[in-house]
């Protein structure tokens, strides 16, 4: 085994990931406790920057609105798996969160009076479902880019300490609390041990377990994956959002804002089919319903495209200047990748894996809770897509992810700073980096015949075939067996690059391990849930079953690798479950 250089650091707090949630948390801890932000990328590369449409808050700048209506929509959109007190916090604090981003300098689009403009978005309605409401605050169709840039700018202003291109691979616990995180430095191959009082994970999603995906190549679930291996259960992993409008075959996201601005979905005969599925809000129904409608149109022979497996997103009736002003980026994607002019021709689209509703269980302070009784693991925090608060329940509404990252990034950062101020640095356990040293060495010295790219491609194909918009016992059993085979093949992976410098061959191999584990947790959770709720639709159990399934799933990985499920109740509130009609 080659000697690995191991560097030691001490901090009050460590933030893992520098997208919207991590950066917002860093702003909160700045000046309160000595914080290191570790990211495997550069902060501005984070996938928050790919979010397009907007961030909802009931500012009522352009029409009547209230945070209670936003709350109702969020709960109904989440098919009543939402923890209502948490969602109430999010929808109430949304208003201040948007105002704060404006004060940070975010260039929101404006009304003629100079106030923040707002537009319609899927599932967001006036007065409990009467009609679509203009609630999404936005900046052209690059709202996520603006949030990411603005938060990074504020971190620069505050002198936040970044360790760029440091990939966190492990955590260590001591005396029943978090004691350290272990990171791999991409530029050198050195390891860095950060002895710390607390760590907040904000590593984003894991949509790269699917073939057709809107996710960045780097969204591999590193945070949830490494915590899962250390015994932290994963919550509600069966709920993965498939966004209705991904660019055909590529999966690149075309924002719901396209429909918010008036875009229409059409099948092969040109019919506006959403009128049949959601007569009131039509194309602006929540994403789970629209994705199912599209897949139904395709299955019933009304699809378009080479394999008749897509439908059209039609913007051709919109004024060209509205497209240029409100949807410039997504229409440029269509020109670049499909060679289609969206002003004159409809765009072939299909559902694309987009967002993990599930993840690391937390409370509303971002503290990680490790059981059904709300037990907090001291020093461990999570926020953003990698976390599950749960404010999105079984199906997240559009724009609520940008809201989630700023609201709970801030709350997690504040809670972590308070915790760090009241506690001493924990002792550093012996051999804290041993396991990472071993994993790197195993990967570099492997002699098997498997390649990372091939195993990953087979995982993505299996998950897209068997655990996508429509699921069943047969499909999920097949998915589980496929993942099991792939985990065996993963043991035979060999990498070409044995060197220390920017060895992405190595990091991709380690990331694949997380994707496999999380895919297994997702499929096991999905197979057990014999009902249909939100994004989890079972053709063999096509209705929601509140009597048995108004509960969150917790999937834990045992020492022997087996996945064990347990459940905890949904935290209910004023809104009682009712049938979801739109």
């Amino acid at each position, binding site marked *: 085994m080659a000697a690995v250089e191991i560097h030691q650091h001490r901090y009050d707090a460590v933030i893992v990931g520098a997208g919207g949630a991590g950066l917002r948390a860093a702003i909160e801890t700045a000046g309160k406790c000595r914080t290191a932000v570790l990211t495997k*990328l*550069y902060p*501005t*590369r*984070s*996938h928050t*920057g*790919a979010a397009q449409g907007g961030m909802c808050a009931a500012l009522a700048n352009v029409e009547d609105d209230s945070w209670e209506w936003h709350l109702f929509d969020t709960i109904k959109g989440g098919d009543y798996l939402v923890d209502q007190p948490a969602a109430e916090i999010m929808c109430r604090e949304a208003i201040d969160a*948007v*105002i704060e981003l*404006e*004060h*940070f*300098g975010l*260039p*929101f*689009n*404006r*009304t*003629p*009076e*100079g*106030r*923040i403009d707002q537009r319609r978005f899927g599932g967001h309605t006036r007065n409990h479902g009467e009609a679509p409401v203009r609630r999404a605050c936005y*900046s*052209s169709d*690059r709202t996520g*880019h*603006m949030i990411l*840039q603005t938060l990074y*700018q*504020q971190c*620069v*202003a505050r002198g936040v300490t970044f360790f760029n291109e440091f990939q966190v691979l492990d955590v260590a616990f001591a005396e029943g609390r978090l004691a350290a995180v272990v990171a791999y430095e991409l*530029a050198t191959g050195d390891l860095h041990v950060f002895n710390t009082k607390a760590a907040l994970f904000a590593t984003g999603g894991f949509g790269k377990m699917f073939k057709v995906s809107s996710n*960045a*190549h*780097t969204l591999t679930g590193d945070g949830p994956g490494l915590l899962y291996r250390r015994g932290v259960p994963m919550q509600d992993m069966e709920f993965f959002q498939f966004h209705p409008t991904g660019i055909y075959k*590529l999966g*690149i996201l075309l924002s719901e804002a396209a429909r918010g601005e008036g875009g229409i979905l059409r099948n092969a005969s040109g019919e506006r089919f959403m009128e049949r599925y959601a007569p009131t809000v039509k194309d602006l129904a929540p994403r789970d319903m629209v994705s199912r409608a599209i897949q139904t149109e395709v299955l019933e022979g009304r699809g378009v495209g080479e394999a008749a497996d897509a439908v059209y997103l039609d913007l051709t009736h919109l004024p060209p200047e509205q497209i240029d002003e409100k949807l410039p*980026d997504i229409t440029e*994607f269509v020109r*670049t*990748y*499909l*060679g289609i002019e969206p002003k004159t021709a409809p765009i072939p689209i299909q559902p694309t894996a987009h967002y993990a509703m599930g993840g690391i269980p937390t409370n509303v302070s971002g503290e990680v809770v490790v059981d059904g009784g709300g037990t907090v693991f001291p020093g461990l925090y999570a926020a953003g897509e990698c976390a599950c608060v749960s404010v999105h329940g079984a199906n997240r509404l559009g724009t609520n992810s940008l809201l989630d990252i700023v609201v709970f990034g801030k709350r997690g950062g504040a809670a972590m700073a308070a915790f760090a101020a009241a506690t001493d640095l924990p002792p550093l356990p012996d051999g804290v980096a041993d396991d990472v040293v071993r994993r790197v060495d195993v990967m570099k010295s492997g002699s098997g015949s498997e*390649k*990372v*790219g*091939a195993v990953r491609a087979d995982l993505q194909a299996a998950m897209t075939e068997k655990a996508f918009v429509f699921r069943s016992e047969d499909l999920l059993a097949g998915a589980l067996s496929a993942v099991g085979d792939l985990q065996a093949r993963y043991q035979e992976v060999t*990498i*070409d*690059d044995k*060197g*220390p*410098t*920017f*060895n*992405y*061959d190595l990091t991709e191999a380690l990331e694949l391990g997380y994707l496999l584990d999380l895919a297994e947790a997702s499929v096991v959770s999905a197979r057990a849930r014999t009902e249909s709720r939100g994004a989890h639709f079972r053709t063999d159990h096509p209705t929601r079953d509140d009597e048995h399934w108004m509960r969150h799933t917790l999937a834990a990985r045992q020492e022997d690798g087996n996945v064990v499920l347990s459940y905890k109740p949904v935290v209910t509130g004023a809104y009682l479950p009712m049938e979801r009609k739109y």
Partner: protein
Amino acid sequence: MALVDVELKIRRYNPDVDPKPHWQTFTVKAEPTDRVLDALHTVKWEQDGTLSFRRSCAHGVCGSDAVMINGANALACIELVQKAAGPKGGRITVEPIRGLPVIKDLVVDMEPFFAQYRSVLPYLVNNDDPGYTERLQSPEERARYEDTTKCILCAACTTACPVFWGNSGYVGPAAIVNAHRFIFDSRDQAGDQRLDIVNQRSGVWKCRTAFSCTEACPRGIKVTQAIQEVKRAVFTDKV
């Protein structure tokens, strides 16, 4: 769509074994509508895992994969094979962006670039208490700086600038773009400080209006125009 043959000629360098950079050619199958990034992935995932390059979003918004393709800066995830090699395939040369130290293969040291970015106070400065509501800004005021808010810090502009190649002390187009974004924002109060910064010897006066930056920008920002507007603001002392 039919697959075509693509010869990818890549500038390689591994500091752990290579005394100096060298070229290596790989042949891959690609669809004409594939991204150059897809072809690089085919090399890495099927032929040679030691090839290193940065990438993340793969659709032109994260700014990770600026490289030089056939001698011109571009994002590998926006440039399509049919453009770079032709619709029937052919050769594509890929090399690291110029003017920043190469670390390995297509990976360059981005720290000098981000240091220049940080030097222009790239954040809103406004010391007035805004209260509980948003600051007002008219659509016209917003339009004044919207173009430069699109920057993704990919460094394609700065590393396409012949002045920057000759003088790495030059703050470069990207930093000026980010100064512009705040100088022309009606809410900002630090315009004078930023104008002083870009008025230094390493600042805007180094620009020779070569337009290389504008051609290189994958976001279509009118970079040269932004630099000219900042020059005019320095010269007239008003925005």
